[in-house]
């Protein structure tokens, strides 16, 4: 398991290779990379600054990771999330899941992103072309996406 919160960029290929290095029990790797978009709510975005809660962020990501391992048979999980100022096209977040078969890898990867978006203490401040800076509001769609993983059995 790898959980990292860092200011610097990451290399998705290198992270995927590291997650499965030396293993012969992994038949499927799924990954998700989130990027900064240059448009939001009809406005041009010049940059985005991600604030976080050092200490809690790492703990929360580890709790989410443990939840995923409890639900799916995973051989490896990598979560890397950046903070600080980024510009459109920059990578923000990486999730890598490795399992014997593809369905667990796909599902765990989607679950981790959905839970991360509603639980990990990060906040986005968007700078628009006119120099204004605005905190991004949480989306109801993100809550709905996280809720679909509720344990009902």
């Amino acid at each position, binding site marked *: 398991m790898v959980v990292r919160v860092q200011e610097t960029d990451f290399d998705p290929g290198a992270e995927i290779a590291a997650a499965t290095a030396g293993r012969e029990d992994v038949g499927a790797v799924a990954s998700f990379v989130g990027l900064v978009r240059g448009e939001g709510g009809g406005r041009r975005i010049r940059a985005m600054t991600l604030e976080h809660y050092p200490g809690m962020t790492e*703990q929360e990501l580890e709790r989410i990771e443990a939840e995923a391992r409890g639900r799916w048979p995973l051989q490896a999980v990598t979560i890397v999330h950046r903070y600080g100022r980024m510009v459109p096209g920059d990578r923000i977040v990486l999730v890598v899941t490795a399992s014997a078969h593809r369905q667990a890898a796909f599902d765990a990867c989607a679950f981790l992103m959905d839970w991360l978006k509603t639980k990990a203490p990060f*906040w*986005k401040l968007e700078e628009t072309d006119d120099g204004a800076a605005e*905190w991004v509001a949480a989306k109801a769609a993100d809550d709905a996406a996280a809720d679909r993983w509720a344990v009902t059995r």
Partner: protein
Amino acid sequence: MRLRYFAWLRQRVGVAAEEIDPPPDVRDVAGLIAHLRARSPRHAEAFGELAVVKVAVNQTHVGFDHPVAPGDEVAFFPPVTGG
């Protein structure tokens, strides 16, 4: 008790963290918020719209009915927007 504020709550309160010694009748998060609202106009404004205020006690998400005690780290922040 150590208080921490993030994102627009930090901007509205005007500090990222502060140490307070709340009166003994402050027993839970809701009681702490009521105490903070009376602390300054900036606090009153920051805690004006509680539907968009989330809280963590000792770095774990909790509800407003969660107990608070001296020595706790209590963080207030808007709904998270990472990923």
